[in-house]
């Protein structure tokens, strides 16, 4: 069948020079979809900036260093110091607690579990991600907080020399709604996402590399350490960043479980702490125009923070991807 031209002219396919009307329409639709994403992001950013400006202009206190939050039509002095501190500390602590667990879960499912168990474990972790966050918040408020008393006391008694876990005023930690409690519930919430993506990433590593390591006499753990984890690092980093992104924005669960005081003390076991999202959840209902504008300003900061985190993740992945990874 020499009359059929079987060479693939990809360049002309892409530029649409092949001329079918359907192709042109489809190309236009996909272009529109791509542009729509940019337009949406830009529109959100512009909205945030415009709505935040009135309060920022009227603010009589330094936005970055003030801890208190008072924004009503006559009396405007608010600052994001405590909120930003709380947001960053809870999210980072949540990531530190959950990432090793997530990687462990993923490794177990991919490497160590028998086949049927690993499929079921995969489904179960995915189902954990489907639980609504407000349900997590209610469970934490009504059950977890009460049962954390023992853990709080243990940490204070043996680790109080670390400022993070100290309790200088000897406050009661029996039902402590603290940054630590919020971090724990956030860790539980980001575990499924991080585990699911890590699992997918680990599964992508070719068995040739793993078998080569085993053939050279490596133990199971050495094989994992040298030929399974290194090539998966960019993927695991992106999983961690996705989890971090979710933790940064988590609202109701944190608002129910955190102590809602504007503190920058860094003692995570003491009742108190607030995040940008929980502050918005608490104050939005009763806020007047200036109050809403101030809350939107804090939302803008959170937006920029999440963008920054994602950009850093992209950079890490780019750099890691350009290195050579060998199995030995």
């Amino acid at each position: 069948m020499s009359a059929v031209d079987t060479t693939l002219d990809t360049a002309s396919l892409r530029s649409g020079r092949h001329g079918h009307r359907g192709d042109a329409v489809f190309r236009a639709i996909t272009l529109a979809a791509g542009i729509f994403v940019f337009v949406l992001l830009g529109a959100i950013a512009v909205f945030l900036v415009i709505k935040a400006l009135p309060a920022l202009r009227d603010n009589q206190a330094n936005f970055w260093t003030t801890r208190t939050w008072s924004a009503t039509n006559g009396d405007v002095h608010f600052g994001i110091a405590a909120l930003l501190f709380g947001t960053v500390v809870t999210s980072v602590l949540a990531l530190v607690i959950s990432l090793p667990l997530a990687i462990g879960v993923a490794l177990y499912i991919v490497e160590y579990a028998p086949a049927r168990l690993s499929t079921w474990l995969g489904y179960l972790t995915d189902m954990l991600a489907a639980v609504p966050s407000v349900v997590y918040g209610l469970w934490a408020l009504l059950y977890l907080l009460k049962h954390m008393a023992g853990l709080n006391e243990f940490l204070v008694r043996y680790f109080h020399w670390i400022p993070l876990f100290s309790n200088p005023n000897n406050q009661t930690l029996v039902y402590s709604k603290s940054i630590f409690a919020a971090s724990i519930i956030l860790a539980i919430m980001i575990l499924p996402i991080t585990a699911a993506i890590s699992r997918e990433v680990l599964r992508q590593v070719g068995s040739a590399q793993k078998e080569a390591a085993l053939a050279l006499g490596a133990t199971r753990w050495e094989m994992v350490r040298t030929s399974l984890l290194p090539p998966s690092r960019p993927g695991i980093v992106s999983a961690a960043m996705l989890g971090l992104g979710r933790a940064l924005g988590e609202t109701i669960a944190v608002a129910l479980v955190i102590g809602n005081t504007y503190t920058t003390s860094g003692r995570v076991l003491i009742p108190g702490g607030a995040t940008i999202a929980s502050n918005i959840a608490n104050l939005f209902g009763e806020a007047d125009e200036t109050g809403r504008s101030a809350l939107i300003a804090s939302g803008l900061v959170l937006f920029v923070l999440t963008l920054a985190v994602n950009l850093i993740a992209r950079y890490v992945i780019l750099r890691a991807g350009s290195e050579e990874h060998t199995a030995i």
Partner: protein
Amino acid sequence: MKVTLMMRTAGIATITALGLAACGGGSGGGNSGGGMGSANSLNPQGSTFQETLQQQWATNFHSSNPSAQITYTGSGSSAGIEAFQTGQSSFAGSDVTMTADQQSAANATCGSSALTIPITSGGVAIMYNLPSLTKPLNLSADTLAGIFMGKITTWNDAAIAADNPGVSLPSTGISVFHRADGSGTTNVLSGFLDATASSVWTLGVNKEFSNWPVGQGATGSSGVAQGVKNTPGGITYAEVTYAKQDGLQTAAIKGAQGGFVQISSATVAKSIKSGFSITGTAPDLAGTLSFTSMTGYPISTVSYVLVCSTYKDAGLGTLVRKYLTYAAGPGQDVGTSLGFAPLPKSLDNKVLASIATINQS
């Protein structure tokens, strides 16, 4: 993939259906009474202080008027005023009176003057968790201010002992719970402390404070009550129904007048009679509270409804009038079991007179 005739038909049908739904939903909805309401349904919203009472009234009113559907949403006084002045809800519940700007916006939306009418009264109970005490604690205004300002940190402090001679107090630390969200309840408590203990209470009067010197915040009255229930030595302020439902004791408070008074329907009503004065001209009954004049339970407040004096929709106006006539009449006794107090008779008569003028001119 091959696009069969079946798929093509299904695709066209789906797109048409979606298109029609979009068009239909936008222009329709006039008769269904979404938003403001209609002759048969109301969607008021506002103060969480009166939320439980409004919901009880709505249920009772519905059983005697089966065609009427009233749904009260406790979204907060500010949200309620906002919804009322933009015409999104038929009337609003509010713990505070409107500012001049809000009043003119509401007047414009109503097309007639907007009225502020007291509809119920209640007290802010001080509840605590000290299972070892058999009798309720006495707390004077200065002691209460000291506790909420963090000056008094243990239950066996000298100030508390002075208020309670002969009672053995535990040495537990005091865990203060306050509202993290803005609330009329915080407004009332801070108003009381500012009026009667201003040397100790220095935060002023507001719906929420970001600079509480002590304690932790919880969301909603149920959040603070829950916190106290789970923390021995906890103390907080909330509507009295939460103390009852969580089994917490409430303190007897001493204000500017009289002795230590426990919260009850009768003591709240006594305070409203002595401490509430009307500043508006009838039929508008907005007023102010004077905590220093209250002779009953000293942390009491009224809660208002904001209505139009003449609604553009006559059927809607009639329903609002009937519902509020019930609320200000037989409905006043309904609130007693929920922790609210009926309005004093003299005030209630004025309220009924104002409500009777809605859509009557």
